[in-house]
């Protein structure tokens, strides 16, 4: 899958699954403390189901969840590792 395609899918997914959350309010969502545990849990389960992998514990970090772009990069890396 192309990187741009992954980015588009992640953005669409986040918009669908968490319509009430503004992902554009900051480029460092996690570092600003804007992702509470329930929001993060919903993001993780949405990504896991959409792309069919388990996000490893060591990858659930603030830097990977700061923005839809960093999340897409994480997804791309995990898909590549799987392949």
């Amino acid at each position, binding site marked *: 899958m192309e990187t741009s395609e992954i980015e588009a899918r992640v953005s669409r997914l986040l918009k669908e699954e968490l319509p009430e959350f503004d992902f554009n309010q900051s480029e460092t969502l*996690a570092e*600003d*403390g*804007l*992702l*509470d*545990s*329930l*929001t*993060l*849990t*919903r993001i*993780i*389960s949405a990504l896991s189901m959409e792309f069919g992998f*388990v996000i490893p*514990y*060591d990858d*659930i*970090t*603030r830097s990977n*969840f700061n923005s839809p772009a960093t999340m897409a990069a994480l997804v791309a890396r995990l898909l590549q590792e799987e392949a």
Partner: protein
Amino acid sequence: MNRRLVDTFLFNAGAHPEKACVCCGDAVLDYGDVAGQVLACANALRERFDIRRGDNVVMSAVSSPDYVIAFLAVQYLGAVTIPVDKLVKPDALGKLVEYVNPKLVLAGGSCGYSGDRVASLRETVRGAGSGRISSAPAEMADPDVAEMLFTTGTTGTPKAVMLANGGIREITRNTIAGIGMRADDVVLIPLPLNHSVGMRVLRSVLTLGATAVLQDGFAFAKELEVNIVKHGCTGLVCVPTSIEVLRQQMQSKFAEVLGRLRYIELGAGSLSIPMKRKIVEELPGTIVYNTWGSSETGGAIFLNVTEHQDKLGSLGKPVNGVEFAVLRPDGTFGPAGDPASAGRMSLKGGMRMSGYYNLPDETSNALRGEWLVTNDLAYSDSDGFIYMLGRADDIINVGGEKVAPVEVENIAIGFEGVRECACIGVADPLTGQAPVLFYATEGGDFSESDFKAFVAQKAERHQVPRCYVRVDSLPRNRMSKLDRKALRRMWEDSAAGEASSRNAAIEAILTRKSIRDFADEAISKEDLETIVKCGIHAPSAHNMQTWRFTVITNADVIARLKDILARKAKSYKTVCYGFNNPSAVILVTNDRRNRNAAQDCACAAENMMLAAHSLGLGSVWNNAISYMQEDEEVRQVLEAVGVPAQHLPWLLLLMGHRTTADLKSPQRREDVIKWVV
């Protein structure tokens, strides 16, 4: 005796300045560092902002040493600390500021709030530097208030809880005693520091001369591990929902990481009983506590989950120095030894708040004599363990029967695959209120019909939810506490809520089935009255209402009817099938001159069967009697029960309590529907 928290802290700093006091990320500040900064910050607050005894200071509760320093500095000056959520929106902060009228707002970095009384918390602390001596005088706080904590009341309007030095000392003592905290503990606090739980643990750490590790939330489980390992944490204070978040992310490392801790305290909510069992099994070397507390009292009731496996349904016992009673309907206070006598939980002890700031009515409602009256319905067992039934406002009145949400939730959570659930009461046209269950599953296959059957089988009839709503997760507030108000809004907003009565009716119609075997249990008079009332509300041709409903619970009369019908059915070329053991029979008759007698009776019968079904009862229609309307023996019975001579019997409704939760309706033929459009 009169020593304040900040005095004890400074004493500890003098006794062991090199000991780690507050850690955050890679930073480790020892007691000497923190004390120096506290004194310098106090000077700056006095000189730059003229902060004096009794002044209110609102501060952003960032999870960093800056907050701890500013908090202690304000306390040192005898002023009042009022922490607010670090993510508070400017509008909300404006309202809080209007309410408590502070002399200064120490704001977080990106809070977006501006005004002439606002300064940056970080810059105020960092700019003050460090000094071992303060030129500003240490002052005792006002006797009534040293700190204020915001709490959200049932109306949703924040109230500022005033805590005096004496109360704070007792709250601290209670937490230390309840958990058995020690001076050598290193306690990880990933909770917001504007809430009661985080603050009382922080105060306890500073009082003991122990070490606090601050962390911004528990959303990223890895950060907990890093902190636990790096700082050698021995204790963790968190909220119940955090456990599931940590477990999901850590997976197989959960037990290894959390197992390093000497203890875990879970506050601001109860772990469900299965969750309590599970965590104790997973962490055999760690003591798990679940604490009941409030902003008004601090942590007051402690359950050692590891030790009291037989009391997992309880909140635990009040710590020494805290007394429990319930507020009785007559306004007096006394013990309550069983659920039936449960009342609003009331606590006595030095840990009580002084009142709600500028809210005299709310204060006198909560502080009565020596007691603090909570809004939680509770009772205690003979060993002194306290059990909570829910918030007094949350109790559901189902046609006069009181249902505590927790009773329904405890049943529902026992069904495999249910991850969390919550029950609320909603308006119901039939019973006034009815329980509705919101639930989230663990994922994978889940049969809602099996779930419903499971609950229906275990629950009392009035406890059975009228409606089930599946959600991804339950709404929670910033403390991860269940937000029942949000559930109520969800219900009202949902189509199901808007049309709840219609949906309940459709639900009843689609799930009703004939029940022929009944439990050996009488139907209550109220239920029979409700059922027969539904009967007379059926349509009748030309609104004649010439029918009669004869409600028979007399076992001899029922046996006689059964005998006649069973014996004579064949001679009347019919069958009497399924007349088994009803506890009530409704005989429906109609005037023989009414040409629509049979149709009217049939409409009424269906109404009554649906009503019975809605009430959790079973029923079956038996029309053998319509074949023997003029039979001599039948007429004798009719006469004996007072049916007028001009009336003909059309049917018997046999009803009773169900013995089975299997409510699967038989297959319906769809091919009987034809559309002409």
